[in-house]
Each structure stands twice: as C-alpha cells, then as structure tokens.
C-alpha cells in the first residue's frame, strides 16, 4: 500500500511539474501524500487487532466443527491428546480467574497505599526514589519473575506452610501481585495527583487534618481513576504467561474448597505457553488452543474496554464537555465496603508478614493489639495520633515495594554474579548451556530488538503524529484509539500465537528471526505511539500557530517546529520499547527462537537464540542449568534495566532543559 501511494504521488507530482510549475501545488500534493501515509500508520493498529481476531478465529473455527462449544467452555477435563480428545477448558478459565483474584487481593491494598504515599506524603526526593523502584520493578522481565518464583518462592511456600508442593495458586497470585503493582501504582498515582488543588485546600481550610483530607476528600475524588488502575492491573495479571506457567504447577483441577490457595492449578496462559510449541499443526488440539486464546483475548478485551470507558469519562468530566454525565454514582455503602476491604487486606498482609518473621503467636498478639488500639483510637485518640498511625501504615506499604524489589534483585545478583565472566559473555554455549558462554543469545536478543524497532518506530511515530496533529475528534479517532489501547492490552502470549499463525504458518516465514522481529514490533507499537503522542502534545500550541502564521505549511510546521522539541520524548518511548521487547519470552518462544546454536544467524530466516528463552530453558529443561540460569538472568536484567535507566536520564535532562 505504501509503495503504491508513493508511486501515485511521484506520478502526479511529475504531471503537475510539467503542466503547471507552481511550487504551491506540488506542496499541496505532498502535504496530502504525507497526510495519507500518516493515516495509514494510525489505522495500522486497528488492522493488526482485526488480523489478530481474524487469525485466532480462523484457527479456532475448525474445533467447533468437531467439538461442542458448550463442552469446551463447561467441560472440566483438558486432555487434548487422548482418544477421544477432551477439550474442557472450565478449569483453565477458572484457574486464570482465581490466580488473578488472589493477585488483586494482595496487590490492591499495597499498590494503593503506595500510590497515596507517593503522591501525597513523600518528600519529592523519596517519591522520586520510589517511582524509580517501581519503574525497575516493571522493567524486570517476566521470565525472571518466574525464575525467581520457581527457585525461591515455591520452596518457601512448601516449607513455611508445610504443604506437599509449593507450586500453587498462592505462588501464582504472589508473583502476579508483584507484577501488577507497577501498573496499578502508576495509574492510581496519576489519578490521585490529578485531583484539583482547590478540593485539597478547601478541605484543609475547613479544619480537616491532612489524613482526613486524603481519606475523605482526595481518595474519593480519585476513585474512578483508582478503579481504572485496578482494572488495568487486572488485565495485565490475566494475560501474564511465563511467570504463571513456571509457578502454578499446571494441574488441571480447581481448589476444593475454592479458598484453598495451596492447590496447584492451571491457567489459560500457562496452558498456551506449555502446549502451543509442542502441538502438531492442524490437529484438534491445535484448534483447541486457539479457542482458548480467544477466551483469553476476549476476557482481556472486556477488562480493558471497561478501563477505557472509565478513564474516558474521567477525562470528559475534567474537561467539562457540556455533557454533565455523572460518572457512576457510587453509593456511600460501596465506598465504605471498599475502604474496609482495603484496610482488611492490608491488615491481613501485615499479619502474615509479622507472623512469618516472628511466629504466629506474636502475629496474633500484634493483631489483637492493633484491633483494640484501632477501637480506642476511633473513640478516644486525637486526630493527630490517628494521622500518625495512618501515615505509618502507608509508609510501611511503600517500604514493602522497595523490599520486594530488593529481595528479587539480591537473589538474582548474588547468585548470578559468580557465573559472570568475559568468557561467559563472549563464547558459544556448550553442553546445552551448562558450559561455554551466551554470545549467540546476546546477539540474538539484540537482532530481535533491532528488527522490532526498525519496524515499529516509523509506523509508531507516524501514527503518533497523525493522532496528535491531524486527527479530529470523531469516530475515526475513536476507532484508532480503541485499536491502540486493545493492542496495548493484548497479552504477550496472544501476540505469540498470532505471530505463529500469521507469520510462521500463513506467510510461511517459518520459525525465524524475521517472524520474531515482526511479532515483537507489533507488541511494542502501542508504547511508541503513545509516547510519541504525549511528547507531541506537550509542545505548546502557540509554537504551531506561530509557525503557521509565518506561512509554513502544516507538515513543515510539524517537521521543523513540533518534532524537534518532542524528539527526546520519542526517544524515551523507543528505549522503553527496546527494554520491553528485549525481556519478552512468550511472544517469541514458538516464533523465532532455538534451543542452542553455536553460530550466529546468517539470514533473517534463521532461528536465533535469545536471553529470556535461554533462562526459561535453563530453569526448566536442563538439569543442573540453574546456576547458569541465574547468570543469564543477571545479564538480561542489567541490559533491560540499563535501557530503562537511559530512558529515565533522557527524560530528566529533557525536563530540565525545556523552558517554553
């Protein structure tokens, strides 16, 4: 499409040149061509989402010719390779729901407390440090979380709670809770910080304490934003693959009773991750997995749509676009229940933490102490002391974020460091990765990321420019936005399935570097679009108007006036995408990677090694590969975190330098 529009333009412009040599007309055509090109970029996300849906359905369709849809959804046995094949996904669907519910129970109190602490209480330097910690937490690759969970967390659960196995619902929930925290904290913090100054000042002026202001004025005002944060975190948790697959045990059953968190369970993403790489193409099992992916995709789609609706309504009320739709009227009772659930969850968490460290009797004593204290507090204590207590709890919650990050980093660094050496980085692997080095994996990861960015950067920046500079509010923009948001929310394993079905099989690229690059490119596209859009929007309107008033065309204005100051922002988005793409396993594990290879890839149709996949292999398939796995995990973390660090530095310099 692009080359043909280019040709058309060249032809018309030449025609114009010969007939009427007016530079003005040429410019006009050029402007139109650029407009068209940018529009194609913008609509690209929508096309990709449509293709994902199309290919999932195309490959799942054959299942329902042979297998009843009701049996698929309600059947409680997933035994796809037996005669006759049983493809009951109920346990897997509920497994995903339960692990996510558990994760949210743990994650919401901690995340919200941290968000409140960062936005309202922490001094600027501390909140900067916390934000950095959260960014680092979000930069830790999924497979590293899974690796940590498998090596440390599952053993801890088995021994501490005296269970037959630690690979349980609980392990999955804890890992997902940690992984969902950055999303929830970031979005909730934005929502809380966005509450108008006047509300805050009004409350304080009426004589409320700082805590009363926060708990009764600011948090309720930000409640819709907080809800959206929770929903987005949930979307992230449902779609997570590698970490969940490595720690939940993958047993095709549901807990009896439902609250028994020490039951091994299997999730939809775990099943897809385990089985799609080993399934013969075209079998009933193959179609069954795509049907499962559809269920997953639709679930995430609904969750993200819900978040979108809520966030958009907030935006509407804040801009005040005439339509005075009340958000949803949240009855006070619900708010109260929510508040109590919040406090209860946080209390439970602290209780478990203290009990673990000092034994259960101490934990129970502390709990009783706190409860009686709260009762006295409510009735007798002064506001000031209430405030101290509340702030103490919030700071403790924030501290836990740093502690979690610390534990993970310490574990990986302390066990990974002894493995690192020059040879480890520069030699080829031998003995299935247990000896030699990891050079092909480093090069492979580098090539995958480079290709992904080469593909996603032009399209993403183009789309960002279109949305920020050309698009008018209306149906088209709505569709484009929905496309980008859904692409952003699509679970990485679904990208993997799509890449497998579309690039590897349909376009017949085979399992290859190029297929991996394209799949990863699609995955990071939304990040690039969003950061580009944000960066462009932050350029003041007056600059554009000034340029246009001087007679510059629209594109000249964008190219020479708007883009240059937005450039650092775009670079930041690109670097974040590089970090994300470099750490992903699920999208490429059946699209691009190979177990072990001594040679570097010689063409884009070769398979490559990659760091995250190598960690997964060393942790789960190679006996005695664990020490080495720690080494690879450390290298990957250093690379990814270095990317995030660079992005942070660029952003900060940019903020300092820009003075409008």
């Amino acid at each position, binding site marked *: 499409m692009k080359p043909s529009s280019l040709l058309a333009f060249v032809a018309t412009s030449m025609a114009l040149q010969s007939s009427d040599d007016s530079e003005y007309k040429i410019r006009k055509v050029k402007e139109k061509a650029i407009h068209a090109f940018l529009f194609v970029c913008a609509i690209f996300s929508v096309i990709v989402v449509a293709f994902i849906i199309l290919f999932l359905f195309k490959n799942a369709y054959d299942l329902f010719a042979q297998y009843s849809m009701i049996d698929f959804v309600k059947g409680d046995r997933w035994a796809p390779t037996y005669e006759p094949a049983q493809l009951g996904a109920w346990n897997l669907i509920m497994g995903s729901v339960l692990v996510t519910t558990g994760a949210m129970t743990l994650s919401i109190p901690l995340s919200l407390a941290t968000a409140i602490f960062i936005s309202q209480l922490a001094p600027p330097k501390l909140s900067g440090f916390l934000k950095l910690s959260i960014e680092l937490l979000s930069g830790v690759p999924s497979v590293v979380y899974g690796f940590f969970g498998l090596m440390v967390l599952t053993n801890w659960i088995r021994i501490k709670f005296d269970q*037959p196995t630690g690979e349980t619902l609980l392990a999955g929930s804890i890992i997902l809770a940690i992984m969902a925290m950055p999303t929830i904290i970031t979005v909730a913090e934005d929502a809380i910080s966005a509450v108008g100054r006047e509300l805050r000042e009004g409350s304080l002026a009426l004589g409320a304490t700082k805590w009363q202001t926060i708990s009764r004025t600011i948090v309720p005002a930000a409640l819709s934003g907080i809800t959206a944060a929770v929903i987005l975190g949930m979307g992230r948790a449902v779609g997570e693959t590698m970490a969940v697959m490595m720690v939940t045990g993958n047993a095709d059953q549901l807990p009896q009773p439902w609250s028994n968190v020490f039951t091994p369970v299997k999730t939809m993403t775990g099943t897809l991750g385990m*089985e799609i790489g080993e399934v013969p193409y075209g079998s009933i099992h193959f179609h069954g997995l795509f049907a499962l992916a559809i269920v997953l995709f639709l679930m995430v789609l609904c969750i993200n749509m819900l978040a979108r609706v809520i966030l958009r309504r907030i935006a509407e009320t804040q801009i005040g676009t005439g339509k005075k739709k009340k958000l949803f009227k949240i009855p006070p009772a619900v708010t109260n229940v929510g508040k109590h659930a919040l406090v209860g969850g946080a209390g439970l968490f602290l209780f478990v933490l203290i009990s673990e460290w000092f034994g259960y009797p101490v934990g129970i004593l502390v709990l009783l102490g706190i409860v009686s204290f709260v009762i006295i507090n409510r009735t007798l204590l002064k506001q000031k002391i209430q405030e101290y207590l509340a702030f103490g709890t919030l700071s403790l919650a924030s501290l836990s974020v740093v502690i979690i990050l610390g534990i993970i980093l310490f574990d990986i660094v302390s066990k990974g460091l002894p493995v690192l050496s020059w040879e480890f980085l520069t030699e080829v692997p031998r003995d299935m990765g247990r000896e030699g080095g990891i050079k092909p994996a480093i090069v492979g990861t580098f090539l995958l990321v480079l290709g992904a960015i080469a593909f996603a950067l032009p399209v993403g920046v183009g789309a960002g420019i279109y949305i920020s500079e050309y698009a008018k509010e209306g149906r088209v923009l709505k569709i484009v936005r929905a496309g980008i948001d859904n692409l952003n929310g699509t679970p990485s394993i679904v990208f993997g399935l799509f890449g497998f079905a579309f690039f590897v099989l349909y376009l017949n690229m085979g399992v290859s570097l190029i297929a991996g690059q394209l799949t990863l490119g699609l995955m990071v596209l939304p990040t690039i679009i969003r950061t580009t859009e944000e960066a462009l929007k932050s350029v003041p309107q007056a600059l554009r108007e000034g340029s246009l008033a001087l007679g510059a065309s629209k594109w000249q204005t964008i190219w*020479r006036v708007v883009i240059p100051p937005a450039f650092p922002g775009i670079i930041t988005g690109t670097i974040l995408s590089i970090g994300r793409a470099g750490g992903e396993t699920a999208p490429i594990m059946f699209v691009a*990677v*190979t*177990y072990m290879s001594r040679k570097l890839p010689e063409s884009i149709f070769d398979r490559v090694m990659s760091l995250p996949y190598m960690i997964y292999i060393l942790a789960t398939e190679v006996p005695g590969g664990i020490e080495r796995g720690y080494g690879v995990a450390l290298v990957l973390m250093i690379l990814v975190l270095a990317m995030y660090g660079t992005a942070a530095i660029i952003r900060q310099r940019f903020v300092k330098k820009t003075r409008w």
Partner: protein
Amino acid sequence: MPLLWVLGEYAMLSKTKKTTKFLAAFGVLAVVVTAGIFAGCIGKGGGDTVTLTVAGSTTVLPIVQQCADAYMDKHDNWDIQVSGGGSSVGVRSAAEKTADIGMSSRDVKASEFAEWPSLEVHIIAADGLAVIVHNNNPVDSLSTDHIKKIYTGIITNWQEVGGANMPIVVVGRDSNSGTRASFEEIVLDKELPTSSMLEKNSNGAVKETVAQTPGAIGYVGLGYLDNSVTTVAVDDVIPTTGTVLDGSYPIARNLFVITNGEAKGPIKEFIDFMLSKEGQKIVKDEGFIPVGPTA
C-alpha cells in the same frame, strides 16, 4: 522506503542548521536501522556452511545435542541447530521439512504414517522410563499396579504403598510429550491420569520438581537419572541397561530420529555419525542404552 524518501525530500528543503542536525540524527538512525535489516539478509556470505536443523523430543535432545557438539568440533563449517518441541513436533517438523531431522521418544503413530507415508524412522538408542521419588522417601519398590493407581488418583498417600503418612504429589509431563505417551501406554492402559497431576514440560523439570518435593513421584528417561532423586524398582526390577535390553524392566521404549524420505547428504552423514561407535558412546555417556557397538 517512504520514510527515506520523506527524509531526502526535506533534507533538500531544509535550510536552518538545527533542522539539518536533527535530520542528520534521524537519518543516521534510519540508515543504521535499515542496515540492520539488510545485514540480516546478506549475512557473512560464507558459502559452504552446512546447516542442519533438528527438532522434537526433549528426551532425545541431549543425545543429538552432544553428537552435534562433537561433530561440529570436527567440522568447522557445520552448524547443527537442535531445538525441542516434543515428539509430536519432531514427527511433524520432519514430515513437513521445517526441520531436516525430527526427534521422537515414541513410535510414529499409524495415523502419522497414513498422512506422511514417506517418513523414515531410525532407532538411535533404547531407553527405560525410571520411576523416581524424593531421596528421603523410604519407598524403593512399586508394582506397575501401584504406579497405575497412583497416576490415576486411586492411591493418594504414601502410607498405602508402605511409605510415610504423606500425600503423594503426582508429577507428569505435558500432553504432547512422547515420554508421557510411552509411560501411559505401558502403565495406565488408556486411562486418564489424575487431574491433580502437575504437568512439567521436560524431563529435567520433572526431575528438579521431584528432587525438591518430599512427597513427589515422577518418571524420566534413564539419561536423566542422578543422585538427586531415588529410582524405584518396578515389579522388583531396577532399570538398567541390562534389564531394559533383556526386556525384564517393564517400562521401556526406543528413541528415534525421523527423516522425510531416505536420508541423504549431510542428513545421512549426521545420522551415520550418531550410529557410529563414537555416536553410540555418546548415547551411553548420556545414560541411554546404545543400539550398536560403542567406541
């Protein structure tokens, strides 16, 4: 490359210094990125590299990987890429020629032969499936009937088979595993395993889990045995090279590599190497049972 065209167009038009600098930066980025793409296509141009791809069973993988390493040590221009995927993928990828050689730890099914009659099967090793438990577990012998009842969920506590009062954690393989297919065909007699079975996607993972979990039972190929787990005698026979070869150990199978059509050229060379004395020695060193003379 519309982007480059846009760049060129505006590079000519641009007059201010700042824009030029910016353009240069963007241009360099674009060139680097484009070069990156094409570098992949062009490659190093080392014409006589022989590349073989092997995919399939993770049980057979260590043998082939070590043979590949040994072969590549001798032949500098060879690149043998070995990847996993499981036996079903091994059969499939050989049949569809997405890999030059497929690996399988189970027999090729009749349905697969019916679909691809040109498949050729080469036995490269024999293997026993050892039943393993945690090192602290006192149980050291089980009958096939016991194992069947454990894997179908009828027996759920070690007490019932003469062990401690401890729940049994049943560990098995993912649904496309050839090891699982062989094991269940011999032991379970077409019954479904219990739904509380933990599924692991490799022999190594099964062994690691059993080694870490006091109540666990699992099954792995002989090549994966070491002192981190305890091997259980099945019907009073310990799996060894001897007991597998003479047929007294009940849970045994062959390991295969598969080609589509008669093996020729480099493919044949490599398979011959695996069947040579040197290759069969690797089979033995990896803990599997050679099917030919060893060096």
